[in-house]
């Protein structure tokens, strides 16, 4: 039976996965489709769109980071389970 710490780690991993998916599917990730040169043109619109692309790149990187962190949490949870299983007589 898994220990409390392993359960908590898996729960955190699950929530990080959900957060990553939510960010990935958010409206801001496709906002540039409404802000093309058929909507507005000029220096300031260009700066706005460039800034958005910069933020989108940052968000994509953070989504990757969240999933990696979730993976690490799951790995740690698995190691904790294994360590608990290798200790005979230890109640979880």
């Amino acid at each position, binding site marked *: 039976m898994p220990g409390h710490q392993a359960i908590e780690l898996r729960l*955190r991993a699950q*929530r*990080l996965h959900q*957060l*990553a998916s*939510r*960010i990935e599917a*958010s*409206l*801001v990730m496709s*906002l540039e489709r*409404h*802000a093309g040169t*058929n*909507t*507005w*043109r*000029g*220096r*300031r*619109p*260009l*700066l*706005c769109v*460039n*800034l*958005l*692309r*910069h*933020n*989108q*790149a*940052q*968000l994509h*990187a*953070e*989504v990757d*980071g*969240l999933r*990696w*962190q979730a993976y*690490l*949490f799951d790995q*740690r949870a698995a*190691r*904790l389970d294994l*360590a608990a299983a290798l200790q005979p007589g230890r109640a979880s």
Partner: protein
Amino acid sequence: MSIETGYQPKRVDALNWHARAAIGELLSIHSSDPAAAPAMRVVVLTRRNLEDQWLPLIMAIRASNAMVTWSSSVLSGLADLAERFGQWLTFADSTSPASRFATLNNEDLMHELYVAGHLNTRGDGKGSIAERIDGGAPFWSDEFADLAAELAVRVAIDERFALRLIDEIDQHPLAAVAIGHADFPLAFSQAALPGLLESGRWWSGVHVEAIENAMLHVLTASPAAALDLLGDSAVLAALAGAKTLDPTIARDFVRAGLYDAIEADRARLIDGWGVLENLTVLADGEFDDGFHRGLAQGVADSMFGYVATLAYGIGAGIDNDAIRIHIDSGDSLGVLGDRDAVANLFGTVMRGADARVTMGVVLGAYTDRVINDLGATIVDRTGVESIARLGLLLRDGLNDEQAELTLAAAAETARRQRIGDLIGFGAGSWMSASGVGVVTRTVVSQAVSSAMDLGSKGAPDDIVDMSFGSTTYRGIQLSVLRYVHDHPDAHADLAVDRVSPEQWAEVGRRLDAIASKPDGAIGEGLIHDLDNLIANSIPALDSLWKQFAGNGDMTRLKENGRRTKS
């Protein structure tokens, strides 16, 4: 290059709806997990950028035709008409069909220019020419655009007229003001700017307005041309000592030349270093109070591109070595200056609070970049000490503890943002000039706030050393630990594979706590506790850290040693 400017009103309405929906959705995204803190910061940053940059522009467009305050205002009637019919609005064609100026010969046109300039420079208290135009003043609102358009045409087709105007630009600054109100050739703005800048007439409103219009034209049309102008040492000196120039325009101009131009054409990197070399010489002169605020900020912004080469050039020796510049680790390109002179350059740049914090952000981003680039070779290769050398160089340029505190707080705040990708030119190609500004501004507001908090608290006890050296040293240590913790595949190479999963879990938990609670990291001694844990219970990690922390520059940084000037 000219940028066509315009908008489609109905699509802008739709964009308004989508942008607001995106903001609302970002507002609803929450997580209290410390491991999600970096992601949540980017979510907040993105939302703020939409609120601060997008919405004001969209609102301005929907309220009027004010999207481009720098375009010809005579088009307002056209814009109203087009908006009524929902047509595409374009501001690119700004030439009036005919004007009385078109019938004048060159002499009479110059006379009209003189009369108009004379009227403006009488000091009647009616404000700048832009304000007169916006205010509907006679001549300025109904005729100046025609005069500007005729001057632009005449300059483009009549080389002798253009050369005469450039030669006499000091007497006719209104011709350069006209650059902002008609489609002048870029070459004219380029040629007019040195004479205007070097005249030193900073007390003349029309003169400054002329300079600003010419600079805006150059920086928006051609960053390469901005770099050419910055390469003129007389222009650079005039900009550095400017009295009343708009700081935002000066900043954008310098950044366009020093950063954007290099990003577009890496072959121009040598010219960028030439500008920094000239600035090093200038800083040794009459700039005890610092360079012009905008120029200093533009230089600081651009250092994201130059810092890695600079740090490499500082070299192992610290005592008055010449700082040599190597591009792409190749042969030495030249000498930027001796160490004292370069420290003085950055000290002069950092007299301005904004530029100082931006330099801190550069240092923090560089720390993140170096440690992530070194990866598992962190022990075998030199690299980490380059952060120490850069930190010491910047610190030596400053002359008061409060300034050091701000620099350290900015660097530490930026390091936690994990923005190492901003370092360099090619790697940052996704980052627009405004991107640097926005990231910097966001980090700046946090960093200044942290610095003020730290400054107001003073040293809480003898456990906590908040000096620049100690803060930077701690930052390097935390970045290394974070890297090692997050990369289990590198543990064998780094000889820390005997650290148990429980110990990694504990180190990770404490790193998360420090990252999510920076104030507590200092005030509550979280870093001190982590130090003790590693020193007392995890000998493999302790040994890893000592391998590179024993470097002379790292030791000097930790001890906050200020070198004595020779």
